């Protein structure tokens, strides 16, 4: 199992080989999302003539949308199509000849990206703490930040298993791109990535509590903001672990069935 440290180190070297990407994604993407969300919510707050909506003030909402994009990147990693693309072009062969588990390898590479975006989150938090005027009535501290980052890593583990389930459909179907995009959309929507879950109707929230989605995005974001209780965090971890074991079983089942269809491309 010593190889996983080297895989992580190698993935980090790969990321650092394209350092401009790091800054473009970090600054560009975060800034765009922040500007759009702030402008939108500022106008909603002004129209409603209120300073608080469903427990959110405008500065809190701004902070929420500052954390969400990086959190989503931690969750969904870098590699959309990280298995299906390789199944289609045959580069998946490589993992089948090495004496290791292909899924462990893929999970390690995936989580390396998550960890790396976690560094971006810490960086963002530090910039925010040291440069912004503290207008946010939150309990945000470095302890909460690290709790949130750890929670994001657990949720990323659940998400990578969900993604693997979809990606493995490539062993049967010629194109699974739509399903991968749908998974991202549903995760973001039902996880509170587009609109905080507090704005969802009660019946929807009562249903969602049994799904992994609220624990994938909303819970870690609120944890970073210092708004989750330890009971909520513990419950979230338990739910995520239960779903992870379920998805792990499904992935194993699908792989056992599907690997017989793998052609490694070409005859």
């Amino acid at each position, binding site marked *: 199992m010593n*190889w996983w440290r080297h895989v992580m180190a190698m993935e980090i070297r790969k990321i650092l080989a394209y350092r401009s990407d790091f800054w473009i994604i970090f600054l560009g993407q975060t800034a765009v999302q922040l500007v759009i969300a702030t402008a939108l919510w500022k106008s909603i707050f002004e129209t409603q003539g209120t300073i608080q909506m469903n427990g959110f003030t405008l500065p809190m909402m701004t902070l929420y949308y500052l954390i969400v994009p990086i959190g989503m990147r931690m969750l969904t990693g870098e590699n959309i199509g990280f298995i299906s693309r390789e199944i289609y072009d*045959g580069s998946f062969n490589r993992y089948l000849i090495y004496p290791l588990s292909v899924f462990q390898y893929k999970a390690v590479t995936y989580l390396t990206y998550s960890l790396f975006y976690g560094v971006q989150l810490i960086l963002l938090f530090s910039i925010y703490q040291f440069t912004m005027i503290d207008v946010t009535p939150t309990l945000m501290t470095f302890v909460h930040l690290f709790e949130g980052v750890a929670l994001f890593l657990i949720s990323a583990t659940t998400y990578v298993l969900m993604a693997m389930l979809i990606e493995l459909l490539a062993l049967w179907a010629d194109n699974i791109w739509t399903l991968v995009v749908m998974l991202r959309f549903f995760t973001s929507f039902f996880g509170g990535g587009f609109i905080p879950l507090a704005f969802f109707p009660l019946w929807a929230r009562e249903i969602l509590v049994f799904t992994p989605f609220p624990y994938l995005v909303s819970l870690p974001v609120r944890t970073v903001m210092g708004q989750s209780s330890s009971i909520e965090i513990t419950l979230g971890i338990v739910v995520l672990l239960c779903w992870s074991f379920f998805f792990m079983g499904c992935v194993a089942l699908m792989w056992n069935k599907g690997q017989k269809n793998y052609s490694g491309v070409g*005859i």
Partner: protein
Amino acid sequence: MINVQNLTKSFTTHVKEPGLKGSLKSLIKRDKKTKFALNGVNLQIKQGEIVGLIGANGAGKTTLIKILAGIVHPTSGEATVLGYKPWQRDNRYRKQMSLIMGQKAQVWWDLPALDSFILLKEIYQIDNFTYKKNLEFLSDTLMIKDQLKIQVRRLSLGERMKVELMAALLHNPRVIFLDEPTIGLDISAQKAVREFMKNYQVEFKPITILTSHYMADIQELCPRIVIIKEGQFVYDGSLSKVQRMLGDNKVLSVTTEKEIFQLEVPRTELSIKTKEIFENHNVLDLNIQDPSIENIIESIMRNGLGPP
């Protein structure tokens, strides 16, 4: 030892009629077509042996290699390599096996080769002494020491293949599958790879299966060849034997005042044909040769082992 018994692999693909009508129809119902990439093949290879697998594109060479490397499951039949069923992917087997695909890179493109080698050292659990010794030996023999710290994507095709060879041999595999290792390489790079593999085979005696469309690779490296046609073996034996079997013809290369042409004629009719040519043409030059190995193999692939 490789032992293959009655191995079959079929692939099912969807077929679609051309045009808009076909596209609309395929939305509701798609027709399937089954193709046999391998159809009941048998093969035994001893330790230290190197076998050339020859066949046209789509004949089933790569499929056989993929099954023996554990990438693809067979449809039916049995195969064991070093006593393991490859598709069960036992790590004890995978640590003793290597696959090099000329058309698929296995080292990581965005990194220098040395970074990939360090990871492979961990994956294959190679001890420090063996790793250093092999790294030294392979980089010296392949003359690629200076390129190991450069991003793989920036290397030439020949250098990249050398790096692939190094990555595949670092763990001293007992079984090596080489799928078109010289494809796309220039003549000197092809020669270097061939020379290296020849010496490696003599020194380490792995089981090696080589596929290549370059007959020079086969002639240089493989005393035994297997010719595969549409998923079935049509010849399994020595290269020299196949030359003798189908070498009853001679090739006449004729240069006249008006044209240059070649004729392949049975050895027994050689004098009659030569006489006819001299009677009917103003011959400037005439050359009599044995048919090239390419022509013999092409003839077998086209007509089987019957008369060409």
